[in-house]
């Protein structure tokens, strides 16, 4: 009982042994035991040993710096591109920009595009002639080209590639679908067959092939530069079911193409190591090894740059510019993109059907201030779809003019105390900002607006509703990656019959696009484009206010004919000519 009364505090510091000695002895004990543990472990090979020791003492220096330079140090380029990645190779596994870049290092198409994204350059095909009615294209193929596995490239590979793509049903393509191969005559009747080449493909001789397409398409050839249309060796997939082929080594580990680089090592979600292909027809690439860093989270980009562990970083966060300016051996490269983020109206909406309302919305928004403050002037103001020459004919610029917006609204007699719905795709920070800014702008001119935030699936479904009523969404935001590649590219955006992922109730625009795609005479093309511009600008189903520039960081050691294409995913077409100076 006595203990309870008298607060007997702990007899804590034993006089005999000073605290420091005890603590030091314990620490030494801890270190020795972890040291003893780590020695046997470092000898055990393999990354997944169960119980490695780990010693966290500041004094431990990292292993010696780079090993002594060998004779002629191999040139190494390390690259990364933001954005996800499909973890596999080959045309059918092509779903993002990064897939594109990797694809062009390994494979070749019949033709490729110049940095101006307009002139078509020879690749596996040296010459090509397009028939008068733009329905038949014959290619002269390059001789003496070898695949990475040593087999020679000739017309049968091209024919078999087209045949193989026709046989796989479109379902197996994640992302981009080979619509141009599907346009070849006889491709449709090969569906789900074991083998065969479409009737529209004629192999005149081992290096001359003729391709007939069902309906005329002036842009068909330009489209062939897309990564989905790379040529793969025929032996690889001859008579193979796609189900088994898609898990084959070709797709998952060792793709075989004619490109400048071959896959040396592939560590899923970490990095891809590519070695130069010595007998590349365009001459041995100047850089021996290319590393492609994969799945790099945004937080790691700057540390990698600061530690000099990456040479080219494509499409990274523009706000990095201030930090990159502090890095001596890197430079910022801004690149006009071909992508566009656009406002998309539902013009069969009872109220928004009236174009004056749509025009009022455009006048209500202050584009210059968004460009100046948020995009930091990195980009341009656009009042017409990218790829069109917007200064060729007088067009309405819809500069910020709230009074005009109010006037138009009054003129159109729109019911101002009804609430209109703006659909917002959840998870996209860009959309989230735009929708709030648009809501504020419209409320400033008197319109009542409700933001309807939807998950991907729900948003896509609502965009594709066939018939709009007074409760359907009136305005949403959308973006397209390759709209700037060609004026005809917009055809997939407009559809007056079955809504693809956008809807334009009147059918005048789709007709003009259809004419544009077929027309081969340049003057005629300009005339159609001007008509299109007038309709698009006045009717305003879509409006692309900004041309956004992407931000890239490139080491000053990179040289040769290195150049970022406007559509940065095409840039690796010229990778064979890139050079990199060794580290100082």
């Amino acid at each position, binding site marked *: 009982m006595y203990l309870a009364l008298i*607060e007997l505090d702990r007899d804590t510091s034993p*006089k*005999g042994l000073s605290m420091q000695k005890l603590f030091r002895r314990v620490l030494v004990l801890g270190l020795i035991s972890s040291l003893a543990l780590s020695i046997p472990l470092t000898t055990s090979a393999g990354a997944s040993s169960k119980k490695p020791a780990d010693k966290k003492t500041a004094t431990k220096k990292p292993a010696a710096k780079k090993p002594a330079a060998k004779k002629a140090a191999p040139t190494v380029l390390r690259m990364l591109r933001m954005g996800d990645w499909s973890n596999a190779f080959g045309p059918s596994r092509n779903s993002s920009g990064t897939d594109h870049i990797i694809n062009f290092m390994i494979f070749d198409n019949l033709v490729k595009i110049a940095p101006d994204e307009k002139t078509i350059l020879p690749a596996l095909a040296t010459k090509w002639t397009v028939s008068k009615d733009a329905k038949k294209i014959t290619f002269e193929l390059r001789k003496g080209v070898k695949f990475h596995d040593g087999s020679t490239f000739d017309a049968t590979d091209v024919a078999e590639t087209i045949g193989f793509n026709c046989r796989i049903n479109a379902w197996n393509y994640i992302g981009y679908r080979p619509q141009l191969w599907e346009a070849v005559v006889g491709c449709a009747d090969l569906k789900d067959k074991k083998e065969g080449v479409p009737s529209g493909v004629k192999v005149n001789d081992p290096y001359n092939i003729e391709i007939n397409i069902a309906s005329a398409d002036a842009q068909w050839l330009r489209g062939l530069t897309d990564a989905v249309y790379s040529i793969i060796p025929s032996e690889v997939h001859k008579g193979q079911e796609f189900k088994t082929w898609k898990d084959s080594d070709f797709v998952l580990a060792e793709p075989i193409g004619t490109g400048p680089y071959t896959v040396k090592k592939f560590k899923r979600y970490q990095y891809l190591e590519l070695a130069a292909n010595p007998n590349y027809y365009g001459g041995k690439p100047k850089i021996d090894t290319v590393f492609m860093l994969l799945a790099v989270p945004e937080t790691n980009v700057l540390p990698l740059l600061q530690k000099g562990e990456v040479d080219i970083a494509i499409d990274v966060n523009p706000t990095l510019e201030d930090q990159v300016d502090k890095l001596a051996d890197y430079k910022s490269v801004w690149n006009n993109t071909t992508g566009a983020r656009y406002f998309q109206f539902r013009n069969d909406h009872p109220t928004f059907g009236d174009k004056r309302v749509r025009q009022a919305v455009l006048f209500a928004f202050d584009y210059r201030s968004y460009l100046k403050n948020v995009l930091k002037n990195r980009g341009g103001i656009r009042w017409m779809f990218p790829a069109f020459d917007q200064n060729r004919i007088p067009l309405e610029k819809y500069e910020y003019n709230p009074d005009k917006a109010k006037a138009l609204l009054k003129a159109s007699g729109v019911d101002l105390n009804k609430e209109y719905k703006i659909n917002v795709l959840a998870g996209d920070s860009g959309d989230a900002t735009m929708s709030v800014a648009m809501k504020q702008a419209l409320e400033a001119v008197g319109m009542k607006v409700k933001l309807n935030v939807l998950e991907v699936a729900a948003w896509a479904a609502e965009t594709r509703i066939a018939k709009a009523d007074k409760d359907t969404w009136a305005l949403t935001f959308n973006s397209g990656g390759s709209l700037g590649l060609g004026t005809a590219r917009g055809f997939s955006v407009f559809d007056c019959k079955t809504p693809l992922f956008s809807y334009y109730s009147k059918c005048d625009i789709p007709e003009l696009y259809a004419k544009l795609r077929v027309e081969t005479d340049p003057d005629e093309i300009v005339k159609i484009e001007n008509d299109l511009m007038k309709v698009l600008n006045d009717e305003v189903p879509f409006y692309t206010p900004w041309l956004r520039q992407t931000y890239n960081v490139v080491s000053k050691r990179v040289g040769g004919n290195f150049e970022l294409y406007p559509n940065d995913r095409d840039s690796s077409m010229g990778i064979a000519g890139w050079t990199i100076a060794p580290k100082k």
Partner: protein
Amino acid sequence: MTQPLLQVSNLRVEFNSSQGHVSAVRGLSYSINEGDSMALVGESGSGKSVSALALIGLLPKKTSKITAGSVKFRGKELVGLSEKELRKIRGGSIAMIFQDPLSSLNPVLTIGQQITEQVRAHENLDKKQALKRAVELLDLVGIPSAKVRVEQYPHQLSGGMRQRAMIAMALSSKPSLLLADEPTTALDVTIQAQILELLANLQKELGMSLILITHDLGVVAGFTENLTVMYAGNAVEQGRTGEVLANPQHPYTTGLLRSIPRLDRPRADELHPIPGVAPDMSIIPAGCPFAPRCESASDKCRAEKPALETVLPGRHVACWHPESTSSMNASVTR
């Protein structure tokens, strides 16, 4: 007069903990010769256990200190001794056993481990010899099948056996003085008697002197030669047990005796508990600490603190009006 084994003079111990300042022992003095046994009796809070712990420096360093007095063991001053020196004495020449055997034995170590540990601390025996010694000690204190018990854990033994193990541990290096701090309070009455008997036999066999700390006068009666009654931190009456119990001089001792039921008294007799409450150790009164509860307290008692006076050879009382009442003559027999 041979030199006393242990001479405690004017020992003062003070605590300052978060709850305030407490002076637990206020000038305690007593001595005990080789082979003798003495009981320290007092209510809870009278400072008897604290004084025992103070002897061998077991009080918490941070919150307590011996402010005055000296403790001489075979003439050697213990107060202020270095930890190393004290450690040789603790468990070597002075051993201690505690009140609750279960909470004084480490629950996660076997009895054997805890005994061999002490043996090897004081004599350099190897493991095997120490274990043999432990078994012998367990036999000595009368624990059946010692070989099995030595491997067992405290919770596997009964209360009595655990206390025996405690005693075995204390005796492991033949101490000349054993401090027993309420060794039987936590045990049943029947086992209490066995333990006391064991202690008495061991004391005779090993010629060891014993200080028995208890609040139970019944235990003290037929057991120790001398007796010291403590109240509020110091000794109020000392002498041979028989004499003190036969005619207690100090009113507190009388009060204690009167509040115990007696077989030899008529059942009708009422018990007279001592009025009032145990003193608040954080307040040091001017006069005699027992004054507020003492029937024959005078102004002098309240004004001045009585010192320990020798009333008869070997009998000391700290009271201004010692009661030489002989009315309480019936001596208490075991």
